[in-house]
């Protein structure tokens, strides 16, 4: 019995030892096979195409990466031309799935492929994709807008011609603009200055341009009436332009001696710094009339409420939809959106300018019709497919890409 037990124990120990030896050190052939199975990941589904809507010289590449395998150190974009020349264009970090080759020659057919680098050598490469770069003459997504622009231009020019011929053009009364003379007159009677705030944006903003045009007329009026005109600005360029405009206004009124360059001053580019500066001017100078015309953001109500607190008559105007309610609540008169741009024509009463206003209204009518037709087409399009394509056409026409 003892011999049998000893034999079994020895047998167990031998089996256990063999099993441990199996786990700890697999055969060499098995290890080699495992390494060979793990290949380096490569780019797949490579697509190359001419970059759309550009001046040429550019090819866009997109690809995906294999999910299985060893992650490469980096990726390389390669290309070859029809003459057999191969070149490495760029090295990209792993994870990149697109690249734009900006060095292509227009009209040359290029072969592109993406290689995977591991340890400084190319370990895998993608299939090849072919593309030819070319220049486009027009942004295709903007053709609809171009057609609409031509139509509007034609209508505006037509009405300008009508205006030039001397035909009476009806323009509805805009209370805010009619009140300009009253506001300046009030300031003169009270012996207080007029404050003109041309918004907080630079001269590349069309609202600032519209505001500056109105400033010219206000300056002429203040020169005629003999009221001081204060113009604090938020941008240096606006200050320079405003100085010239006001000077011109005073010259036209024959009061160049009354022009004071120091009244048109630069405060700061900082939005709330400017608001604080203008509020300070309002509180110290107590202007009788305040014009807030141009592009405004969050400072609109801060300015308008302070102006109201000093008892000034306030005429505001902006095309920023989010600021209009603030001006409506705090100012005596508000020019809403398009009225700001109509101000110059309205104040001058020049037939050519009034003609352009009429053209603008015709353009609005065109869009109104377009919206109504679009709404009807989109609503009926759910039940009748031809109308759906009409709605789609209109949507594409007015969409700018």
């Amino acid at each position, binding site marked *: 019995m003892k011999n049998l037990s000893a034999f079994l124990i020895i047998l167990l120990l031998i089996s256990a030892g063999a099993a441990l030896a199996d786990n700890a050190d697999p055969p060499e052939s098995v290890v080699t096979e495992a390494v060979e199975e793990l290949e380096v990941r490569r780019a797949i589904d490579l697509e190359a195409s001419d970059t759309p809507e550009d001046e040429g010289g550019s090819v866009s590449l997109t690809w995906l990466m294999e999910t299985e395998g060893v992650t490469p150190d980096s990726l390389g974009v390669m290309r070859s031309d029809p003459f057999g020349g191969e070149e490495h264009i760029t090295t990209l970090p792993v994870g990149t799935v697109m690249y734009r080759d900006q060095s292509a020659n227009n009209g040359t057919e290029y072969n592109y492929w993406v290689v995977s680098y591991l340890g400084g050598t190319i370990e895998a490469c993608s299939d090849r994709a072919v593309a030819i770069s070319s220049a486009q*003459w027009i942004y295709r997504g903007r053709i609809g807008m171009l057609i609409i622009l031509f139509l509007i231009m034609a209508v505006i020019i037509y009405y300008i011609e009508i205006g030039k011929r001397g035909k009476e053009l009806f323009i509805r009364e805009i209370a805010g603009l009619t009140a300009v003379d009253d506001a300046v007159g009030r300031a003169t009677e009270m012996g207080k200055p007029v404050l003109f705030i041309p918004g907080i944006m630079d001269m590349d903003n069309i609202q600032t*341009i519209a505001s500056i045009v109105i400033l010219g007329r206000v300056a002429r009026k203040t020169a005629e009436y003999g009221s001081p005109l204060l113009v604090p600005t938020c941008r240096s360029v606006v200050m320079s332009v405003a100085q010239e405009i006001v000077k011109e206004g005073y010259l036209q009124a024959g009061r160049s001696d009354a022009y004071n360059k120091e009244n048109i001053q630069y405060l700061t580019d900082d939005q709330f*710094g400017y608001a604080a500066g203008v509020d300070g001017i309002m509180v110290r100078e107590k202007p009788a009339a305040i014009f807030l015309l141009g592009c405004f953001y969050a400072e609109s109500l*801060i300015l308008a409420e302070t102006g109201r607190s000093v008892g000034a008559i306030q005429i505001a105007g902006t095309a920023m*939809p989010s600021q209009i309610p603030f001006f409506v609540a*705090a100012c005596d008169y508000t020019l809403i959106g398009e009225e*700001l*741009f109509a101000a*110059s024509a309205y104040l001058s009463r020049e037939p050519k300018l009034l003609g352009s206003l009429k053209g603008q209204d015709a353009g609005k009518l065109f869009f109104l019709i377009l919206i109504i037709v679009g709404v009807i087409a989109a609503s009926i399009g759910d039940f009748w497919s031809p109308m759906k394509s009409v709605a789609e056409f209109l949507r594409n026409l007015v969409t700018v890409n």
Partner: protein
Amino acid sequence: MRLVIPLAITFVTGMIMVLHFFVPHQPIKLLGDNLQDWFMIVTAASIFLGALNLMHVHFRKIKLKLKNWKYSPVTLTGFMVMFIAGLIYGVTEAKPFDFMFMNMVAPMGSTMFSLLAFFVASAAFRAFRASNWRATLLLTSAFIVMLGQVPIGAMIWDKIPLAKVWLMTFPNTAGQRAVMIGAAMGVVSTSLRMIFGIERSYLGGTD
């Protein structure tokens, strides 16, 4: 010539920028991009004009002891301290300029911005008076939107937040888009007037 040259410059640059929006081809793209770069350069350079104007106006006020001249030294001191700190130590993080900006300029800006809350309250108090049917409509809409924005609105009636969403999504968006379409037409019209030289008042006359 006094009018012709500025008008010609306006026409050429205006047309280039209009074409730049529609045409990606050379040389329009190059010209348009260059004009935009020029504007950036002019704007950057003009900051010196602004700074000079600021100094000139305030030094003059101090020199002539004009009205409220006592505020001018404060402005000039602030300007000079920031300017010199930026010039000597640079404007990067953890430098005196950055410290002053983060601990003085930014809080002062925030203070001005926070005033908006009180101004909104006072403006709303005046605007939301049921003086006529339109003002009453405005008052009702505003009341619903304000109630829908806070938890108590839903506690009063669970449909109030839905009514707020409807008001903001439909009547409000429609109104805003109407303003935007009108403004866009105004932009086109003003731009055309400028480009074609119909609007000349900014040049100082209509001759």
